């Protein structure tokens, strides 16, 4: 088992290395994570540091990306904002991965009535457009980082549940599962030790792409005033605050959007690359 998964990862890595876009995405992501962790050291100013002599000044040597309506350095705010985006992305996707994965695994493994009930619930959730559901849930929970993560996380549960169910169904009937059962393994053990490792590939791809989606949703909710509250910087919230100054200080709107776009682009590159690398259909 260990040897097999080792070679899978090695193979994936080799294939991934040939994909320049995926590498680009990976590098951008590493930089972002680094910047988020060491924000205090990297950022030239504090995120709430106001300078009333420097209100809405375009990019200059002192403030590389300019200053906002309170004279705060936009670059520093973007750097601190990366913390929020990455946290929301990771935590929200973990929520949907665990909840959706569990639901899908149970539905696929046990089948029958449980399967029917769980998947119908997922269908109902899918009948509500995701962004709408995220808006309603975050409006109900109120503002705040944790609530934002929950709201975004709940919305992609059905996607993971369906994916997990499909993988479990395709693996459940295989002989090594039967062998495990014959050896007296419990249902939980079979799901966690035998089925789950074999469903990893699609889950990893979906998770990577979902992080991009989660970051986008979080920014959208903050833009609509439902996410992180000021003064803490969030990219979507910064854009929303910059809107009234679009006419005269366009840079205030351009840079936060660029930050969101580059992050999402990087995640999409990496996700697509992983899909190509992990997809057994493409193996020669």
């Amino acid at each position, binding site marked *: 088992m260990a040897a097999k998964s080792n070679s899978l990862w090695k193979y994936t890595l080799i294939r991934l290395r040939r994909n320049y876009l995926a590498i680009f995405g990976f590098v951008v992501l590493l930089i972002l994570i680094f910047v988020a962790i060491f924000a205090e050291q990297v950022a030239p100013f504090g995120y709430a540091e106001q300078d009333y002599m420097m209100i809405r000044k375009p990019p200059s040597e002192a403030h590389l990306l300019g200053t906002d309506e309170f004279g705060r350095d936009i670059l520093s705010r973007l750097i601190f904002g990366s913390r929020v985006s990455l946290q929301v992305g990771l935590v929200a996707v973990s929520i949907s991965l665990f909840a959706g994965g569990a639901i899908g695994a149970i539905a696929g493994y046990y089948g029958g009535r449980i399967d029917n009930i769980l998947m*119908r*619930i997922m*269908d*109902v*959730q899918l*009948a*509500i*457009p*995701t*962004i*709408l559901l995220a*808006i*309603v*849930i975050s*409006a*109900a*929970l*109120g503002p705040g980082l944790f609530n934002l993560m929950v709201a975004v996380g709940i919305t992609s549960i059905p996607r993971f549940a369906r994916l997990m169910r499909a993988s479990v169904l395709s693996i459940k009937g295989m002989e090594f599962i039967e062998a495990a059962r014959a050896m007296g393994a419990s249902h939980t053990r079979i799901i966690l030790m035998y089925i789950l490792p074999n469903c990893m590939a699609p889950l990893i791809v979906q998770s990577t792409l979902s992080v*991009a989606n989660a970051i*986008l949703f979080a*920014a*959208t909710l903050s*833009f*609509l*005033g*439902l996410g992180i509250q000021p003064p803490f910087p969030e990219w*979507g919230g910064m*854009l*929303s605050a910059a*809107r009234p100054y*679009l*006419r005269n200080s*366009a840079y205030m*709107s*351009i840079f*936060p*959007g660029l930050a*969101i*776009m580059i992050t*999402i*682009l990087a995640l*999409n590159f990496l996700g697509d690359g992983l899909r190509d690398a992990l997809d057994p259909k493409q193996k020669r």
Partner: protein
Amino acid sequence: MLKYVIRRILQLIPVFLSVMVIIFTILYFTPGDPARIALGQEVTQEAIDAFRAEQGLDDPYIVQLGRYLYKAIFQGDLGYSYVMKSSVSSELANRIPTTIKLAFWSVVFSTLVGIPMGVISAIKQYSLLDSFVTLITLLGVSMPTFWFGLLVILAFSVHLGWFPSMGFSTVSEMVLPILTLSGSSIAIIARITRSSMLEVIRSDYIRTARAKGQKERVVIFRHALPNAMIPIMTIIGMQFGMLLGGSIITEAIFSISGVGRLMLEAINMRDYPIIQGGVLFISIAFSLINLVVDILYAFVDPRIHVK
């Protein structure tokens, strides 16, 4: 065929019921007293109590839910907006045409732009044009709608001054919102069209069509494109739903008084009946569009047997 359609419509009923239950439940447990929202902060406790009793807000959860469902289903009464002082149905009825107009024209526009982009990109695979289209679609998928909207306003309204940045009543006012809402859909439709076309172009019957000396244009448009349509149609149907949801953002940016902006205002005012009604409307529209797409499959592709 008719049987299939009827069965599919009947299947939607439990879905709609569940959507109503879910949204009602989420908002029921949301902190905030509807009586205070309706009457304002400076009223006596007696007035609040009287209002709560009159509106049945003191009844247990299950009674309130039952009443909401009963009124919605048998009387078409989606409740009363305490803030707007009018019925939810009439507020929605005022706003729905605008939102549908916005979503519909955006779907039309993104289809008309997205499919040709994908087809050209697939025919000229690995050419400069293909790379260009791929780049555009990648950017389009990764760009947040609200940012794209601001850029569009910046370029076409602030700098060039071609179109107004507010409203949705005249044709020139409609251009920028439609462009904004279509942005990511164009990218998604172009992407799917390209990959679907590439798959079809490699198939045997396309080689046969070429081998018999058929004109390339006929090969592409008569033989390849119709066969590539199924995944494209699925995506277009899904986009329609996404656009109805996404119209919230576009309506907020361009100050369009559609369902999306109504809901956003309702969320800020904690006007729950409006939120319930809005979500219900968009979910019903979303499900019906998906149903129509499913039925259309059978017409486009006779191989899909309707059981």
